[in-house]
């Protein structure tokens, strides 16, 4: 971790010194334990702020559609972040020549909430030492193995190495190709519709419409989101269950074939709603129906922007009767 951090600072210094970029977006140390904060480095001598550890959980690609388009930007990108950049390139939201991707083969990010549930009292200090997280509180000191406390999105991640980069920091890591990433989705599908509806209503019932999931997601960049439209007003603005349901269904649906499952939405949600249970179902269908995974190839358009004559249509009554649709 330490030499990755050192290399990031060097690369950032070179890029800024050579005027190749106007700014480098990376991570700096957080003000509270187990956290980092995105940082915009404009000047060479600030590169010392840049850090790298297992709490760099934010997907920095989300800033690329929020900053001034003509700025030349370098951005620190994990595997998932780089896939989001590819998704943005494919959709023409960022110009390739304006972006310098500092790719980092990712070892997975640590879920601080999982660790918090395993200790008595508040974590006051946290350090990371080759694969171990040491946390200290007023009445405890504990060590946790990083692998056991990764975010669920990192545990099922099959693309730890960046799919696009101008600079690669360190060696590529071994991809975790064996994991069955949709095992829990398949398990969940076995439940009865009413059970699934109860779980869905319980989860989205906690939503407070703060839109952190939308703002944290790189591929959620509409000028005017459908929830902000007043003419027509699709859904009302309150926390009524039916409006919350439609908000979450359509937000997930709009990420079909574009979501790289970085987990940024779930991490930003203050109410810890299981948001990925919707997006990963869609990612599974997109993989089954269209054999497509978002953010891997800048040349192939996302599935819902194109079509194929052989697409499945068993769920459509086209005269030969509707075959039993597998869920």
């Amino acid at each position, binding site marked *: 971790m330490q030499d990755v951090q050192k290399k990031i600072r060097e690369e950032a210094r070179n890029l800024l010194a050579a005027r190749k970029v106007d700014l480098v977006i990376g991570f700096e140390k*957080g*003000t*509270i*334990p187990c*956290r*980092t*904060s*995105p*940082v*915009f480095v404009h000047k060479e001598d600030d590169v010392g702020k840049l850090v790298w550890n297992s709490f760099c959980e*934010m997907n920095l690609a*989300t*800033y690329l559609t*929020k*900053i001034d388009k003509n700025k030349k930007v370098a951005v620190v990108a994990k595997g998932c972040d780089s896939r989001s950049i590819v998704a943005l390139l494919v959709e023409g939201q960022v110009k390739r020549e304006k972006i310098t991707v500092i790719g980092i083969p990712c070892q997975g990010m640590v879920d601080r*909430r999982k660790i918090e*549930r395993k200790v008595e*009292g*508040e974590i*006051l200090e946290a350090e990371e030492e080759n694969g171990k997280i040491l946390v200290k509180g*007023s009445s405890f000191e504990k060590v946790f193995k990083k692998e056991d406390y990764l975010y669920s999105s990192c545990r099922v991640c099959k693309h730890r190495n960046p799919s696009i980069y101008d600079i690669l920091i360190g060696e590529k890591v071994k991809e975790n190709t064996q994991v069955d990433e949709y095992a829990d989705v398949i398990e969940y599908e076995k439940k009865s519709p009413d059970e699934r509806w109860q779980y869905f209503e319980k989860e989205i019932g*906690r939503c*407070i*419409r*703060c*839109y*952190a999931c*939308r*703002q*944290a997601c790189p591929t959620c960049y509409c000028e005017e989101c459908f929830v*902000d439209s007043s003419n027509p007003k699709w859904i*009302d*603005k*309150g*926390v*009524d269950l039916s409006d919350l349901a439609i908000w979450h269904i359509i937000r997930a649906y709009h990420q079909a074939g574009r979501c790289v499952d970085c987990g940024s939405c779930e*991490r*930003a949600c*203050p*109410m*810890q709603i299981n948001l990925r249970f919707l997006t990963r179902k869609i990612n599974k269908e997109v993989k089954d129906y269209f054999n497509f995974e978002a953010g891997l190839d800048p040349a192939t358009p996302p599935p819902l922007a194109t079509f194929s004559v052989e697409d499945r249509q068993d769920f459509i009554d086209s005269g030969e009767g509707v075959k039993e649709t597998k869920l």
Partner: protein
Amino acid sequence: MKKISKKEMNKFIQSLMADYTILAPVNIEGIFFFKPVADFQGIDGEYKNSKKPPKEVFFPQTETMFKYKDGKVESTEKVKGKRILLGVRPCDARANLLLDNVFAGEDYEDIYYTNKRENTIIIGLACNEPSSTCFCSSFGGGPFSKEGLDILLIDIKDSYLVDTVTDKGGKILTGEFKEATDKEVKLAEKIKNEAEKKIKSRIRIEGIKEKLDAMFDDPFWDELSERCIGCGICSYLCPTCHCFDIQDEAKNSQGRRVRNWDSCMFPLFTLQASGHNPRPTGKERMRQRIMHKFNYFVENYKEVACVGCGRCIINCPVNIDIRKVLKKILTI
């Protein structure tokens, strides 16, 4: 100072359920919400503070103001039944007093809010274990402060000391309350001092308002708001934020007018029908949030609109820390 064992406390609260709705911190998936409880088994040991501040009891996130059918209006400001809000932390109680400035103003009184305030008794729970993100003492509050509370409970292991703050609180304390012994009062005093020492972060507030007067166009705001992704967490979870939106929810001419929480961090907040937006980017909006709490509110109501509860620090997805912001402002 009275005293009651925790077991009796549960029985006492149960007895009040006949004529009060009891709202207490309920643990849902590790997050605490103030919810009506049918049977009260004491406050969960893990309870530090609620995720959504208790302001939502007086100023709900979505509230029907009135219903209408073909022009006939039926207002819904009356509140059914009396309520007890149990387990409020001292910082949030102080925040309600700040909200009173806005909602219970002398020129226009927001009776939706004031009706709920009047018919709710607030029983606070002193903070024996403040968090590292708590800095209530920087604003004149403290883990055991009583402003805004009707009763303050102090947890001394197997019982509570009951400190009656207002007679509104006093009138519900019937029967079971014995006088606390000197030993118990001294123990409470010891816990109080330890709690106050546990609050490490001290933020200097004097001079912030004056600094902000002169720095409206300072590049500080660009640097601060660059990393902000523009969500509404810091305002929705803040106990002193009170901005709201009014919307009609209707089918043809039958429907209701609803008040929802709103946030100055959203572009829609000030977007005008002509398309002009006085606060077009995140910079102006972040500046408005800080200026309103630490400058405009001070000029209008002579108090800083922050109680140091730490919710915005813990919940900001990009870890923008208001303590760091306030320290930086003093250096400009």
